């Protein structure tokens, strides 16, 4: 399902001393089936942007199109149900929203609310548990007896059980240990592929954007600052530094190598082993390696 933001401006508390313009004239197109990373500092408008995707917020001016659904400034939204059924948002620390007695009930809560029949719900719960890599016998447990990482997976399973077409992830790995982070990002990527999802990832990690996304959007002070394929965006180092954003470490390192040794190595996501080989042969004695 494709997403289009058309000159969206959003102002919090308009007409009060706390008035704050969080998004300004933002236009953005996210093609169906793409994986888009949204990057920016705290306060750059990332959270405001994603809340427009399922009409939790309505633009102050401009419009947002999600599939055929149009959310427009000044017009009452009808049929929000069908929009929210298709757009799953995993908010930060989603495990804080668990509340049911059992894992099964918690995952089933969404589809039940949307009137899905019992048989189908059972099927969806099993499939969602499988997708987040939790064993089926966990269904009867209380979500509050699980570890933090498991609780987060249950919360995510609840979103997946809605069978969304668009999956929005707001810093989904915050607070997990390094292995947990990688497992979770790999899990989202395989879901993205197998379910043909349109995925929007809000992240601070340039590394994750580079590894998983096919498009990167950089926000700064509520405006779109840059957009493009990750490698193209991250090559524009000076522009990124102007808004105090880092570039992925591997690119920073290769830049240093070029400055120190005058040796330029092109990065195109080659594995580390290959990079090590290139570095060794370009910097070391030639006769050893050719």
């Amino acid at each position, binding site marked *: 399902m494709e997403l289009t933001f058309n000159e969206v401006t959003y102002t919090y508390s308009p007409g009060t001393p706390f008035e704050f313009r969080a998004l300004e004239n933002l236009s953005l197109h996210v093609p169906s089936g793409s994986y888009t990373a949204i990057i920016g500092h705290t306060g750059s408008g990332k959270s405001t942007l994603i809340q427009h995707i399922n009409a939790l917020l309505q633009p102050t001016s401009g419009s947002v199109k999600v599939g055929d659904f149009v959310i427009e400034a000044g017009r009452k939204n009808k049929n929000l149900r069908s929009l929210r059924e298709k757009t799953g948002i995993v908010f930060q620390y989603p495990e804080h929203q668990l509340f049911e007695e059992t894992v099964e009930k918690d995952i089933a809560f969404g589809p039940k609310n949307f009137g899905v029949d019992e048989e189908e719900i059972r099927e969806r719960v099993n499939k969602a548990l499988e997708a987040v890599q939790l064993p089926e016998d966990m269904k009867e447990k209380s979500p509050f007896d699980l570890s933090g990482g498991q609780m987060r997976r249950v919360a995510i399973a609840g979103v997946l059980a809605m069978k969304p077409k668009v999956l929005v992830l707001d810093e989904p790995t915050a607070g997990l240990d390094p292995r947990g982070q990688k497992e979770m990002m790999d899990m989202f990527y395989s879901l993205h592929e197998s379910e043909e999802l349109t995925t929007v990832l809000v992240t601070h990690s340039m590394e994750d954007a580079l590894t998983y996304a096919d498009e990167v959007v950089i926000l700064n002070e509520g405006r779109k600052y840059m957009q493009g394929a990750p490698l193209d965006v991250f090559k524009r180092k000076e522009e990124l530094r102007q808004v105090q954003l880092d570039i992925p470490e591997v690119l920073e390192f290769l830049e240093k190598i070029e400055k120190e040794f005058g040796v330029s190595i092109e990065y195109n996501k080659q594995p580390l082993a290959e990079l090590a080989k290139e570095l060794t042969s370009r910097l*070391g004695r030639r006769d050893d390696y050719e």
Partner: protein
Amino acid sequence: MKDRIEFEGVTFRYQEDAPPVLKDVDFFIEKGEWVAIIGHNGSGKSTIAKLMNGLLFAENGKVSVDGMSVNPESVWEIRKKVGMVFQNPDNQFVGTTVRDDIAFGMENQGVPREEMVEKVAGSLRDVQMETYENHEPHRLSGGQKQRVAIAGVLAIAPDYMLLDEATAMLDPKGRQEILKTVRDVQEKSNMSLVTITHDLREIVAADRVIVMNKGEVWFEGTPREVFAHKDSLSFIGLDVPFVAKLTEEMKQYGVSFRKEPLNHEEMVEELWNLHSTK
């Protein structure tokens, strides 16, 4: 009596019938050093922090601070010596202004007003937030909030400051701010720092690293010593710096390193060796 935090054969479990989260843990934190405690989620890191300032008490073994055993009787004395900053910046404010918030800890300890005013100003200067005295804490950015939380701890002039994943919820810019603040404070005073973290930058900057795995001390050493165990670190679910990974790969191509580089500067220096033999 040595001035240090000491864990001797410490075992702890949250419920009687639950498996222990810490098993026979021994280590110490010396005065003035910066120790990073790392480990996978559930390895017992946060439990250690809570045992250090008497939020929890050891079931077996002994936790002591400057020779004083941590127990329900000594806990108020202990907390004058050991300050703590938590992960979530929104969960640690009580005051309606930054000034009131920082004064809270001192009020609890009956510090006279005159002295309090001075200390609030001083600790805000230490974290570069002096112009925010009258601001409302909840309107600050995450990084600013954590700096105020650190100022609140500094105001009671503890000998040990614990940061329990204090940068985990911040963006990269906020993280760097905190790291710099903490480093500056550490340089000025003889305070010990204990940081519980997954952040590789934080770990590399520490004097010493304690690696926890499944409730036990798995390794203890300098960052360089710790990251020399790349394979086993990733086996227990931890990450190693990019430079350390690259070093490992380059060794496969016959490159030798005089010392294991941990950051870009050290790596470049090592590569000059390789380059100059060309």
